[in-house]
């Protein structure tokens, strides 16, 4: 039965290019604790990346898309779809994707759309792009997961809600830096985290976001994908999960049978926070920065509401040839300017001035 649920296009598809973007500002979790708990309590991460005053999901998506294009060597005019998944689209009505497509030179002969599925909106776009390219409708489709994540001041999410993400250019497998062996999607109606229309900050069901939400969906998606591809954790050199905090991805990895050394390369959340729709995807870029030809990679996203997309990937010999064409993800992480809570409050528009 599970064999039937594996998704694999007739025409093999891969990543022709990939690119990350992480803004330079960092808010230490201890700053949030200093303001809200008197410094008491455990910290879920070390620090999170914060977008500057002149940055949003559009500008950050453009940065990542340009990196992906640079690594691919593909002309932007060959792109037939620009899809941006985010929880932080600057406009409620008016696409992020058209601005991005225009900026990178992909207009006008292109599909453009914004995706929404909490923290897995970006991997939704990848799934759709696999179909677009895999069916032969297009040779290239750009899938982006990017966020300037929201967390209510004082809420547990404020420690982690970060900014950043990644762009992946989907194309034919034969010229790809990384091939996609197959994917699987698992979704249920599970209300663990949401933001209603016209609300500024999301709400969540506290501990309900753990076991019946994050863990159940990631575990099921990963198991199903491995079962239907006949693989086990030891077949993968690397694994990357959605990363809402440091503990969850480490625990779900352990429960699935992965070792810490398979997880740590893509585990960026301690340094950049939870980049929501960008979280698993930006983690994958850090893996692609170091993976060698033949290395298998498992990526499993998680979006509240809830669902997981799982992908079995394999690096090709082209990866090491092309990856230096854009800044690697670690260089973005090391480009670091620490800010205090007051600056963060100003940058993120948390001060009501009228």
């Amino acid at each position, binding site marked *: 039965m599970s064999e039937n649920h594996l998704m694999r296009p007739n025409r093999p598809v891969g990543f022709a290019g990939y690119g990350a973007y992480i803004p330079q500002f960092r808010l230490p979790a201890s700053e949030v604790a200093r303001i809200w708990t008197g410094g*008491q*309590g455990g910290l879920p991460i070390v620090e999170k990346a914060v977008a500057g005053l002149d940055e949003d999901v559009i500008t950050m998506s453009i940065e990542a898309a340009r990196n992906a294009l640079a690594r691919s060597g593909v002309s932007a005019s060959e792109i037939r779809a620009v899809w941006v998944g985010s929880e932080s689209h600057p406009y409620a009505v008016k696409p992020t994707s058209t601005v991005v497509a225009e900026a990178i030179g992909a207009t006008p002969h292109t599909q453009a759309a914004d995706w929404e599925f909490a923290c897995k909106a970006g991997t939704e776009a990848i799934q759709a792009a696999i179909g677009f390219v895999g069916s032969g409708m297009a040779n290239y489709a750009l899938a982006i997961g990017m966020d300037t994540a929201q967390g209510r001041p004082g809420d547990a999410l404020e420690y982690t809600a970060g900014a950043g993400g990644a762009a992946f250019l989907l194309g034919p497998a034969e010229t790809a830096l990384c091939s996609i062996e197959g994917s699987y999607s698992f979704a249920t109606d599970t209300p663990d985290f949401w933001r209603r229309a016209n609300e500024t900050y999301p709400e969540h*069901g*506290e*501990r*309900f976001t753990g*076991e*019946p939400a994050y863990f159940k969906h990631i575990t099921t998606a990963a198991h199903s994908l491995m079962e239907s591809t006949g693989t086990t954790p030891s077949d993968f050199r690397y694994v990357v999960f959605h990363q809402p905090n440091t503990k969850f991805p480490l625990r779900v990895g352990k429960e699935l049978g992965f070792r810490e050394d398979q997880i740590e390369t893509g585990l960026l959340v301690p340094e950049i926070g939870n980049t929501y729709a960008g979280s698993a995807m930006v983690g994958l870029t850090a893996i692609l920065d170091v993976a060698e030809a033949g290395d298998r990679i498992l990526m499993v996203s998680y979006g509240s509401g809830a669902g997981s997309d799982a992908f079995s990937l394999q690096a090709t010999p082209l990866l090491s040839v092309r990856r230096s064409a854009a800044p690697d993800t670690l260089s973005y992480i090391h480009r670091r300017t620490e800010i205090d809570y007051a600056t963060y409050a100003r940058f993120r528009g948390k001060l009501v001035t009228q």
Partner: protein
Amino acid sequence: MNPSGQSRSSSNSGSAERPNGRSQVLVAGIGMTPVGEHWDVSLRNLALDAMNAAMEDAGGLRPDALYVANMLAPALSGQSHLGALLADFAGLRGIEAATVEAAGASGGVATRQAYLAVASGAVEAALVLGVEKVTDKDSGQVEAALATATDADYEAIQGVTAGAQAALLMRRYLYEHGAPQYALAGFSLVAHENAVANPNAMYRKAISLEQYSKAPMVSDPLNTFDAAPMADGAAALILTRADARQHSQSRPAVEIAGSAVATAAMAAHDLTDPLGLPAGAASVQAALARAAVQTEQIDLFELHDRFSIFAALSLEAAGFAERGGGWLLAKQAEISLNGRIPICTYGGSKARGEPGAATGIYQLAEAASQLQGRAGKNQVSEASVALVQCLGGAGATAATHVLRRVSNGI
């Protein structure tokens, strides 16, 4: 179980009729669900599991009345009228049924109502169910619902919560008795130790004094390990008259030898002696008198440990320790399974989990298991008399029962 079949308690008539004309009331069956975060189980299904388990344990005995102990369903599940709802859902449509509410003492008070009904002869077999479903709402809503157990006009309106109230009592206790900062740690340590072997417990992990001392504060000086976790749970008892009991049961019979409920001033500031737990003391005295049992004959005490301070106060009010000496029992390990007066033998509210109105029923079911020798690794050796007490609010209601093993069976 006591292999010699001897009971350490002195008074045991073994007859269905008590001298005062009331029938002897037995615990004919018990049922407990695991306490925890049952995201995928509704209030009624949780209740059904416990009711079915108790009826099965009682040899399929069909009750004539259902007493539901519940506090939070109206506020958190939008559901009142649980008597009719749950009787119907359990396949008992038509029987007498109603909800009994006395905050955290609901379980004990409902059991007393069932006990009175059976003892009077009006009801032959009664089902007592405690159920609480809290995880469908976030912690702020649960906290607000729990705060309705304080005096709404004079306490809750000022922002008092159950935890804040317990912290005030704990602060006063440490001050009055000159007890050290971690004086109450032993209660939490013993509860966690006893929960390890309890399959129904929420936290089956022992903790260390170091872990306790590093726990974040809830409301200074009360830390997270002084507070029991609110969780979902349901437990049920079947009470019958001794002469109606199924004869097929091979295990020892357990009777409710004493039952008492007392109340005290509702608001903590109205108590002349806030650390005296007057309702706790009064109900213990009444229950022991009815059972003709002395404090020294009690083999275990299932007490109310929603917050660790109540464990200390309860031990003192029940007469197991001098005033101000309750915390020393914990320090000296006298409350462990093999100690002088074992408490929280299945982990108590602290480690088994705290399912509000159901807590009193868990306590009674756990005590009955002890007296029947069904407690496995948690068995208190030769246990024949148990004292069981649950409290509502900060002790405004106290429900106390004495359970006794009937050594020669019925």
